[in-house]
Each structure stands twice: as structure tokens, then as C-alpha cells.
């Protein structure tokens, strides 16, 4: 009796920090935001509950536009990240051995030792009109005058892919490393070509890693603020920026909270669709990472 009571107390004590953390820092703020998003200001310090904030979102094409644009660009940049990261992960996991492999991994990791701000500013120094790359192009005679590379969608995409790289690479490398080389050889031996090995053996094996990487990268990209804002400049139009603007410069917390929930809904929906498409279960995938 005594010991069971003891064990229960111990369990409660052990769980307490995690539960407190979850409750105080995640659930409570979300509840607060949910309530906030469901009210409307009618006068100074006067509020009524209403769906006006959500209505505004659906009635104002501007917000819709930015929302859809953010979703589409996040999906595209996730796919690009996968396309770029996959060969690198393959090289790290399967082609290079020992030190060379770790070295390449570290090379991919090094940029992440500095903050995202610094990395993004680095890109700005390279790409701005008076920056390194435009000067180089002029010097090579490829362009007559320096070209402005910043403030374009392609630049935002570049920055997003670069920023998310590591988070795609790590699950991919670990899932490819766990792929037994003899499976590839066996498939090859049984007459499969490189492409069909990729399709029938490698991708099915790496599917949890691919899904995990895509989910993480998609969520990071969707929630990214710095990269689209800095590299996109006057044309960034990212939904998180919209949320920031509502909260900070418009003092419209109600609208900001509603936008936040719409973004949360969007990312949840996209992750669900992604899992469905990949035929994976969320728990399995997250355990992979």
C-alpha cells in the first residue's frame, strides 16, 4: 500500500516539470489566444465575443492571398529542400566512408552554428545590388549593370531551402544509413536499374525519414518570419509577418490571434495530408527523427 502510494507520488513528481511546461507554456497561451481570437473590440476596453476576426480573414482577399501564397511557397520550398538534400544525404550515408562522410556532414552543419539572422544577412550581402554576386556578374561581363537579386520570390525560396536544409538532412541521413547496402545490391542483382532501385527500395525504406524531414521543414518554413521578411523585403508577404503586424504594429491582438489559429489549422491540415500521401503514421515518423 505504502509503496504503491510512494511510486505514484514519484511518478507525479517526475512528470510534473513536463506537465507544467506543457500546461504553462503551450496549452494556457493557446487557450488564451483562442479566446482572444473569438472577440471583437467595440470601444475602448470593451469587447464582445464574435467571429468577426475570422470573417475579416475570409472577406479580405488580401489576407487570403498571403495565406495561400505562404502555403504554396512552403510546399514548394519543402519539395526543393528534399530534392537538394536527398543526394547530399545519399552521399553522406552511402557513398563516402568514415571521416569524409562526417566531414561533409559537418560542412553542412557549420552554417547552423551561427544564428539565422546572421546567415540571412550573409545572403543579403551576397545578393544585394551593391553586393558580391551582382559585382561578379558585371565583372564577368554577364550583365551590363549590377542586378538586384533581393526582394524576389526566387530569393525567398533560396533562403528558405538553405535555412531548412539541416532539418531535412538529419532525418534523411539517419534513415538512409539504416538501409542495408545488401538490399540495394540484391535489387541490382535481380535486374533493377538505378531508378527502379530508388523507387522500389530506397524511397519506401526512407519514407519515414522523408516524411519526418518534410513535416519539420514545412512547419519551420510556414512559421519562418526572418528569412522571407529580410530576403523578400517589400515583396515578402509571408503570413507570419501578417500576424506580427497585427499584434505589434496594429495592436490588433484579436486579429493576430485569429490569424495564428488559421496558420495552426493550415499546418495541421498539411501535415495530415502529407502523412496520408506518404502512408505514414505521425508517431512512427516522429520517433524516426
Amino acid at each position, binding site marked *: 500500500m505504502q509503496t504503491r502510494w510512494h511510486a505514484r507520488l514519484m511518478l507525479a513528481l517526475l512528470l510534473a516539470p513536463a506537465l507544467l511546461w506543457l500546461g504553462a507554456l503551450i496549452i494556457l497561451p493557446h487557450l488564451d489566444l483562442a479566446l482572444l481570437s473569438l472577440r471583437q473590440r467595440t470601444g475602448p476596453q470593451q469587447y464582445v465575443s464574435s467571429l468577426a476576426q475570422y470573417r475579416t480573414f475570409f472577406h479580405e482577399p488580401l489576407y487570403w492571398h498571403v495565406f495561400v501564397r505562404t502555403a504554396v511557397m512552403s510546399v514548394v520550398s519543402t519539395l526543393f529542400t528534399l530534392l537538394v538534400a536527398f543526394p547530399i544525404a545519399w552521399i553522406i550515408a552511402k557513398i563516402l566512408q568514415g571521416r569524409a562522410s562526417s566531414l561533409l556532414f559537418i560542412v553542412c552543419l557549420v552554417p547552423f552554428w551561427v544564428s539565422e539572422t546572421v546567415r540571412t544577412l550573409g545572403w543579403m550581402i551576397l545578393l544585394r545590388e551593391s553586393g558580391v554576386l551582382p559585382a561578379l556578374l558585371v565583372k564577368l561581363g554577364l550583365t551590363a549593370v549590377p542586378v538586384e537579386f533581393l526582394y524576389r520570390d526566387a530569393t525567398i525560396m533560396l533562403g528558405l531551402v538553405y535555412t531548412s536544409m539541416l532539418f531535412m538532412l538529419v532525418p534523411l541521413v539517419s534513415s538512409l544509413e539504416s538501409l542495408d547496402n545488401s538490399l540495394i545490391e540484391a535489387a541490382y542483382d535481380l535486374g533493377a536499374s538505378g531508378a527502379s532501385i530508388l523507387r522500389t527500395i530506397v524511397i519506401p525504406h526512407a519514407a519515414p525519414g522523408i516524411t519526418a524531414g518534410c513535416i519539420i521543414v514545412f512547419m519551420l518554413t510556414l512559421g519562418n518570419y526572418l528569412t522571407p521578411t529580410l530576403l523578400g523585403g517589400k515583396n515578402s508577404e509571408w503570413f507570419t509577418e*501578417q500576424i506580427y503586424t497585427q499584434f505589434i504594429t496594429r495592436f490588433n491582438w484579436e486579429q493576430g490571434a485569429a490569424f495564428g489559429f488559421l496558420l495552426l489549422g493550415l499546418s495541421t491540415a498539411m501535415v495530415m495530408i502529407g502523412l496520408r500521401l506518404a502512408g505514414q503514421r505521425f508517431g512512427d515518423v516522429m520517433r524516426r527523427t
Partner: protein
Amino acid sequence: MTKGRTLKRIAIWIWLGSVCAVSAHAADSQKLRIISWADYVPAEVVAAFKKETGITVELTLSNNEEMISKLRATHGAGYDLAQPSQDRITGPQRDFGIYKPIDLSKVKLGQFQLGLLDIVRRNTTLNGQQYALPYLWGTDGLVVNTKRAKAADYLDLCKPDLAGKTSIRLRRPTLMAFAFAMGKDPFALYSDTKAYSALMDQVGAKLIACKPNFKFFYDNKDQLLNGIRSGEVLAAMMWDTGGWTLNRENPDIQFIVPKSGALGWLDTYALPARGRNDAGAYAWINYTMRPEIAAKITKSVGSFSAAQNTGPLLDPKLKAQFAAAFPDSVVKAIHWYPSIPPGLEEIEGKVLDRVKAAN
């Protein structure tokens, strides 16, 4: 059995807690937490203030919107002194109650320039109580690289020959500036929401049409300074002393008072509702309004202090630049921001969003 021990333990905790509280309280009166703009609180003034009063200044850099948002999030706690612009005080105060009224008996009002004190009194009084005092002021106008570009008013930023070479801040002062440049007086429409909304739509349309001309919307001083220094930006909407700073580095770059008139901004001292060191804040206000300290601040920040009698102490170069840009007739034509009535910022916000999203 363990009751005695538990009680003892509780007593110890209470004792420890009260010791901490007392010491924290003691520390509070020696610490002044200011949230303000970049450069507004020069380090040498902070050092001298500490020497004289023993109070340490803790500084957080911010801007109008963030200042209000942070204070709103904490219901006015976390800082002992804030420095928002005078037109942004009554609105947030009415909605969020983030400031406490100024106790004018604790302020040496004689140190202030009467004209500025008057503007602030008019604009920051709510329910008979005054919420702010003037600190620094200046004007927004155009900064132009005169060798490579010509601009006399804000609308000139939209001229085709400056495509991709100009910059503005995507904030409400820009809307006001463009409205004046379009020959309208937005301040006169403050009380007529409908007309104001229509005007803002017009300004928004103008900015959208002009958007390809803007290299970027700058968010901070350094971004704009870099753009102008590197020659990526040839003309921008900017404040006077920023232009004069650039002028000292490169005489081609000049501050120009727009034909439609300069917009006068005025930043203030305001006390957050749950500030813990009001005495320190008043000490700081009185200290920084002393003519010799105010002159030092003006020299360091490059903007003009609201203090009296700083004239003889000012840098002659700055004085000359001011005199050249602002003859008496121009000073008279400065548009001062009146306090913003509720609801207008929402209208402006949507216009700004539309400009941001336009292609």
C-alpha cells in the same frame, strides 16, 4: 509527527522570500528601466546620471509600435519610463491603460520649451490628466543624393527616372506625408472617419502605383543609411538629422524640406502604468532637461531637445544646417501630428497591408 518540521520549513521559505522581496525593492530604486529609441539615451549621459544619483539606467531599444505592444502585454509593467511619440499616447491609453499620469509637481517645467510643452499637453491629455512630456523633436522630409537625383516633394519619389532607387518606411507617417504631398490635409479629416478612409484609399492607391519605384521599405535606420551610402537608394523619406549626418559624410546628400511642408514629430517621456521607480524617472526627466545635458543629448542623437536655452550650447554646424533647412516661414509650416482618434489606425493598417501585398 512531521508537522513541526513542515511549519519550520514554511517559515524559512517565507523569511527567504521576504528577504528577496526587500532586497529586490531596494534594488528597484537604484535602477531605472527605460524603453526608448536607438541613440535616444547616450551612454555618457547614463554614466554621468549614475555618478550624480547612484541610479543605473537599463535601456531597451524599441519603436512606437513595439513599445505599446510590450506595455500592453504586461499591462504597463517591466519599464519605468517609455518614450513614445506624442500622437500615440491617448489612443493606447484609452484602450489598454498602459500609462500613469504625470505628476507635474515633480517636474521642473521651467526647463521645457513652452511651445512644445503646449503641443504635448494638448495631445496627451485624457480625462483631464496629462500623460507625457516632450523630449526630442524633429521633422520628416526627403533625403536626396542631389548629384544623381532630384526630388522636391514626396511624390517625386515616384518619378520614373528614380525607379528602384527610392525608399520609404511602410508606416503611418508615410501615409500622412503622401496625403499632404497630394494636396490634402489628413489631420483635418481626423474627425470624419469616412472622408479619412477615402483619403487613405487614395494614398494607398498612389503608393501601390509607386511601389516599383521603392527599392525596399526600410525598417530601421541602419538599413536606410546603408542603402543611401552604397548608392542603391538615391532618394528617401527620412528625418532631418539623419540627412544631415549623411551630408557630413557626403555633401551631395542633402536633407530637403518638401514643398508640401515638413512633418513634425515629437517624442516624449511617459510613465508606464506599473513602473516601479517613478522617483528615478522624474529624476531622469529633470536631469536630461538641464540645458547642458540636453545639448549633449542633441549633439549625440542629432535631434533637437525640448529643453530651453540649449541654443548657445549647440554644435554650430548643426545649427547652420537647421537654419539653412528651416527658415522661419518653413518652421511655421511644420505639420505637427495631432493625437490619433480611435479607429483610424485600423483604416491605415489595411491600407498599409494592401500596399505591402501589391505587386
